[in-house]
């Protein structure tokens, strides 16, 4: 196996959200790349070469480089996070590519994720979805003993399956409607699965779904591309469960301020 490879590299460059943007051919900087390097290390090498050639480096987001912080992400040859299943861009390694292969690298594309520069996008919309209800209100120091409420192992495991979402945005990039349903349903599903999450369940579901729409994400129309792109293999079933929770909340939820009288008997 060749230890180094040469690539035909095309990278999306865009100087801010208002710039039209274009692909640049950086093949001359993409030669002699070790197959053991990660994809981001490959871009590091390209960037050092660009800088020494008096060109501005490619801007891309990244941080932990071990697949957990969710900061990195780019579309490689049309696939969010590239060709390897269940793998973030930082964990994708160059042994996945052949020498001479053509690479087209682009940012997540969604109107709710404006481009900041090059491959970096603004995912502030995700923050606002969480702020709308992705939490359990529990003031520091007011909690009961952790073993006070036993939680079945299967339930805890299931909540964990959803909670494993890293909020990278690949699901949005993969979806033809640019829907963030998978992200949102994972966050809702995690909290709605647990006994601690029940008090705010309906309010949470309604508020987060409303915020998702406000941010300009599309609706889910069951393409399943998000699940295929998700580096943490979050199941599409969470979207089904979110829809169930949404329906139930829409029927039964009344904000506290709309409840009658203050006698707490508005359900009568």
């Amino acid at each position, binding site marked *: 196996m060749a230890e180094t490879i040469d690539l035909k590299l095309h990278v999306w460059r865009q100087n801010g959200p208002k710039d039209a943007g274009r692909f640049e051919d950086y093949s001359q900087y993409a030669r002699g790349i070790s197959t053991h*390097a990660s994809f981001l*290390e490959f871009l590091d090498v390209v960037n050092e070469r660009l*800088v020494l050639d008096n060109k501005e480096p490619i801007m891309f987001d990244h941080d932990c480089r071990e697949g957990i*912080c969710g900061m990195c992400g780019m579309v490689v040859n049309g696939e969010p996070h590239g060709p390897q299943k269940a793998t973030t861009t930082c964990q994708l390694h160059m042994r996945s590519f052949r020498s001479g292969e053509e690479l087209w690298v682009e940012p997540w594309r969604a109107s709710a994720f404006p481009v900041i520069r090059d491959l970096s996008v603004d995912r502030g919309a995700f923050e606002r979805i969480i702020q709308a209800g992705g939490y359990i209100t529990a003031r520091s*120091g007011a909690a009961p003993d952790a073993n006070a409420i036993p939680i079945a192992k299967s339930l805890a495991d299931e*909540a964990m399956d959803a909670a494993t979402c890293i909020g990278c945005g690949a699901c949005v990039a993969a979806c033809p409607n640019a829907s963030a349903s998978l992200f949102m349903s994972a966050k809702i599903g995690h909290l709605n699965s647990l006994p601690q999450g029940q008090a705010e369940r309906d309010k949470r579901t309604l508020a987060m779904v409303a915020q998702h729409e406000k941010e300009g994400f599309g609706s889910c129309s069951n393409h399943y591309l998000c699940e295929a792109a998700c580096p943490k293999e979050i199941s599409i079933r969470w979207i089904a469960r979110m829809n169930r929770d949404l329906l139930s909340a829409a029927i039964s939820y009344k904000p506290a301020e709309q409840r009658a009288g203050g006698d707490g008997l508005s359900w009568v």
Partner: protein
Amino acid sequence: MELRSNAPTGPIETRWDRHRAEIKLVNPANKRKYEVIMVGTGLAGAAGAASLADLGYKVKAFCYQDSARRAHSIAAQGGINAAKNYQGDGDSIYRLFYDTVKGGDFRARESNVYRLAQVSVDIIDQCVALGVPFAREYGGLLANRSFGGAQVSRTFYARGQTGQQLLLGAYSHLARTVAEGKVDLRTRCEMVDLIVEDGRARGIVTRDLVTGKFEVHLADAVILGTGGYGNVFYLSTNAKGCNATAAWRAHRRGALFANPCFTQIHPTCIPQAGEYQSKLTLMSESLRNDGRVWVPRKREDCTRDPSSIAEKDRFYYLEEKYPAFGNLMPRDIASRQAKFVCDQGLGVGPEINGVRRGVYLDFADAIKRDGKKAIAERYGNLFDMYQRITGEDPYSVPMRIYPATHYTMGGLWVDYNLMSNIPGLFVAGEANFSDHGANRLGASALMQGLADGFFVLPYVIGHYLAQAGKSKTTESSAAVTATLQETQGRFRKLMDIGQKGSRTVDDFHRKLGGIIWDNCGMARDPKNLRKAIEQIPQLRDEFYSTVKLTGSGESLNRDLEKAGRVADFFELGELMCRDALERDESCGCHFREDHQADGECVRDDDRYAHVAAWEWRGNGPEARDGNYVRHQEQLSFEYVKMAQRSYK
């Protein structure tokens, strides 16, 4: 300068309770008049910001990432300790306290450690209430695992993603307070200087990482929850963005830097594969619960297929040397033993600069005993990660591991109230020096971050503000404008050099990291430390004349950000080496080759049972000898008897 810990005296079991009963309070209506700045949104930062906001303070929080939930606490894998004694295996607050002081090789403050052990219990309650999906047993109660340096099972975990789940919990707490308008959260925004006026911390200068704009933020108290400085080594398990700039700039404004040479090398990381390597990846220490560490006994076996090496030809060096703890030896010893066997030529894996730096971590016995399914359930995500990075399947081939820089016990000096020697400047989590001494035990970093954030800061901040009152500094005051101008000048200077430069920032960072790893890494000796102290300023001078930057200062400029951080690493790295040289003993992770007995640390308690706290007297990049002043805080051990740390 006299360093006063301000720790209460009397029975240690009641110190924190008595302190809390005695500290000053700010009444609820007045809290909203006070502004508090939190820099960093990891476990300490997010938990602290949210808790303070819920109390009523006006909080401004800052992180360099695009979301608060990406802080590097997220990458912690194995777990979080707490003295719950849910297993009924003899754990207690006292035992966790004892293990932590002993594990830290008697270089931590007893009062702080006791408090940490005490509030550990509340952390688990708080996290469960926030919806953290910890692992559970079939009966629905919380599960525990054991970790290095302890003989009880007190570690709570969420698969191999405990840090992620805890941070998401703390982050959701923060997100709610942001939504409620109690916290003003600024992302992609980095603190680049501290504003001090009349000896009190008054605010910070930030650089917006998208627009390049410098801004002043004033407050009545400033808290740094900015993490450690492991990236001084270039290759570490830290995230690429982790940096020491906030702490270092505070140091240059007068905050003492304590025990900078106490840096932890984690024993189980994936070995380096090549020059282009940008970081090292950690495999949770929890793997040592089931994995057996070994190397071949004979050099000629080092390149053979490990499965073909007979049991008698395998050297299970931890199990043989330390039968009581075996593969669960504390991190410092496990790391050094790996280095020793590799230095003896028994290492495995690729040869880099003439040495094979790797040892096996073998799961064959555990898979035979418990089945592949059980092992996959415990460590599946770690095994997957290993396979993605190395291209090898750890279910069938033993993992190769080697130590890497992981955590820094040193940090800004703080008293019992987590306040630095600059009034109004507080430091929490890994950024301070206070709880882990010369070596941190596994699963204790998450514990400390959340202890500080959830349960210490809410009290001590009020205590300070009740006494100090509001800061009257305004944007037009002399200290503010001077600090802002100095900061802008610093970045402008880097840009000016960068236009004509010829070497990339990463190139300098790699060289600096190499010097520090070789001379101030797992084993240190005076000759090499002196060499490093000469080499680092030379390299720094080259940096300030030949570093290459493109683009402009007043806009998004990733290389300029990095250059600012690396400039600070030069100074911090030099101080680390000086601290390592001055500490003429071995203790915990600080292993001096000239103070050892068969590879074990030999402490010098008569001369070094103290915290070394360094004062900055330098003057910019020209700083040389004599610009560093070393102060001492004497440590006394009233409860844990100082003894040679023995795990045999």
